[in-house]
């Protein structure tokens, strides 16, 4: 069964479906963290309400920014995230587009969001934005390599760098999370770093630098960046589930496995104090990268 390209882009699995699932997963994450922290948490439509409210807000263009970049960056960021979704098995269905080596493209498209956020921070003259942007980019350079290495583990085991084939391979073999537990942990924590979730939220530590790189954003721009992050959360969970949790074959499996991962992710979020940016870099390069490399070596020897 193939989906017509227009529907694939606008409705499913791209476009509308991603927007809705992004908001749903944001709610699930917020609710779970709230329950872990002994709070009630938001109601189910809160992310949608936040999103709509931001859209209706006045968008302030700060003095001294390049207006084109300022408005284009959030759009590029969301576009990158939406495009990445076309190559992953969203909702457990076959990816819409697929070619050999699309894993690298997906990871690149996902990094686009972080890159755009970093640039968005440096476009403005705001001091909090600048510090936040520096931290965002610093953090990107620390988690990106270990995360990539950790995702390459299953790819090497499957003998292909095509997301859909890795998914099929994972569905037939034992869960990769059991065979390559080190890679699984590195990838999971790497995903948290990518999404700037606590304890890796130094780039947007509100008690230090207000909202980090996005301090000057209001209204639409901010809404789009948030949406981009939500979509990235969904795609990240999908990739993780496809690679490490025995693949995704149908929507039910997708829902159960990604929500299960989210449960773990939100627990990790509420367990730790925020790491300083130097601690983040140290953690990733001293421990994360080494563990991921060891995992790769292990895979190479075993397979």
């Amino acid at each position, binding site marked *: 069964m193939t989906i017509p390209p227009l529907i694939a882009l606008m409705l499913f699995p791209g476009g509308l479906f991603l927007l809705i699932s992004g908001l749903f997963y944001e709610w699930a994450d917020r609710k779970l963290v709230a329950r872990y922290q002994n709070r009630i948490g938001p109601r189910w439509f809160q992310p949608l309400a936040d999103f709509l409210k931001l859209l209706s807000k006045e968008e302030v263009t700060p003095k001294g920014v390049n207006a084109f970049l300022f408005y284009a960056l959030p759009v590029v960021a969301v576009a990158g995230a939406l495009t990445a979704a076309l190559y992953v098995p969203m909702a457990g269905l076959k990816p819409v587009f697929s070619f050999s080596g699309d894993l690298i493209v997906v990871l690149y498209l996902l990094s686009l969001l972080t890159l755009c956020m970093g640039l968005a921070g440096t476009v403005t003259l705001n001091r909090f934005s600048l510090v936040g942007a520096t931290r965002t980019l610093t953090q990107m350079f620390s988690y990106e390599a270990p995360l990539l290495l950790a995702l390459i583990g299953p790819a090497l085991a499957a003998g292909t760098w095509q997301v859909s084939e890795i998914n099929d391979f994972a569905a037939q073999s034992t869960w990769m999370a059991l065979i390559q537990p080190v890679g699984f942990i590195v990838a999971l924590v790497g995903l948290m770093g990518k999404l700037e979730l606590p304890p890796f939220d130094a780039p947007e*530590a509100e008690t230090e630098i207000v909202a980090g790189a996005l301090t000057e954003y209001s209204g639409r721009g901010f809404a789009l960046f948030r949406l981009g992050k939500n979509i990235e959360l969904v795609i990240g969970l999908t990739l993780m589930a496809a690679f490490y949790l025995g693949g995704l074959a149908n929507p039910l499996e997708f829902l159960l496995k990604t929500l299960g991962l989210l449960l773990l992710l939100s627990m990790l979020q509420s*367990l730790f104090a925020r790491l300083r940016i130097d601690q983040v870099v140290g953690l990733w390069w001293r421990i994360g990268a080494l563990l991921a490399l060891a995992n790769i070596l292990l895979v190479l020897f075993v397979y």
Partner: protein
Amino acid sequence: MESTTQKNKFIVPIGPQHPALKEPGHFEFTVDGEIVTSASVRLGYVHRGIEKGAESRSWTQNLYLVERVCGICSNIHGTALALGVEKLAGVTAPPRAQAIRVLVAELERIHSHMLWLGVAAHEGGFDTLFMYSWRDRETVMDLLESLTGNRVNYSANVIGGVKYDVTPELADSIRRGIDFLEERSRFYLKVVTSDETFLGRTRNVGTMTKEQALELGAVGPTARASGVTMDLRVDAPYGGYVDFPVSAVVEQDGDLAARFVVRIKELFESIRVIREILDHLPEGELTARVPRRIPPNEAIIRLEAPRGELFYFLKSNGTDQPERLKIRTPSLCNWASVMQLAVGHKLADMPMMLVGIDPCFSCNDRLFTIKKPGVGRTNSEEVWTWEDLRLYGIDYYRRRAI
């Protein structure tokens, strides 16, 4: 925004409005990358003229006014004034009232320290600890409410005694409440001393040696975390602390972790004293008679507030109103330590270091004398008339084009 790179310095302003601050204050951190190279503080955004206001109110009215100096340690201010007026009038509150004052003061200390624990954890991005400690703080708030009818400004004191008595039923519910709090405090002590990510943010951060603490004039838990044995409840016991002694909790490390440990261990000490008081509550009256007009005299009162040494100077003039009331809150003494120790630390540590002294901004905003008047129709170098101040204010804002 041009001032961003003024003199090639990158200054990160925190405040007057900033998510890290619960009250307005202004801090400027000059940073080199993430490292802070200099720090400055500007206070005075919440000056409320309480001292001047006190001079036109009666002693009894002032009891309620000074409770509003601090929203967290409100009771200790009321106690200070009550003790001061009793000293001026030469009256001593009955033993039962003294004991109940200590009881309320220690419950307040528990409430204040648990509040601080949550705020400090939040500044370090550990929101789970924040939520948990504030949930448990509700217990002590409820106890205070059942004792005095209020959760925040208890107004338990009257001049010459206290308003509220502790019934046996109330004593039982307080015992149950503090049993729960003791268990939770043990858990929090374990968290702040064993959680690796948390220790990564607190251990060896903002370390203040004993010498520095003495030199910079630190007080309260901040000083005690640096090995300075300084606790007025021990050094100069006042009121009920004579009959119910406490021991000072001292840690030697001087870093943020030690400040956490000191404050949590003080919870145990407070809980112990509360049990002691409930078991041996003296019988008798709750109030002593105090004349309405206080003969001319001066008195100094020093109390151990949850944040450190609280200082009151009272001067009476024979009427029912004070001639002068001077308050110095502990937060003011601790600022110097933060500004000194900030240099060389990372920007990310600043919120936790600021909060590490448990600052209370509106408490310490009192008064500043302006010694070199540049504008206005002033004749004197020192004394400003109301008109001078008004003109100065207009000119100040005009120069800033506001």
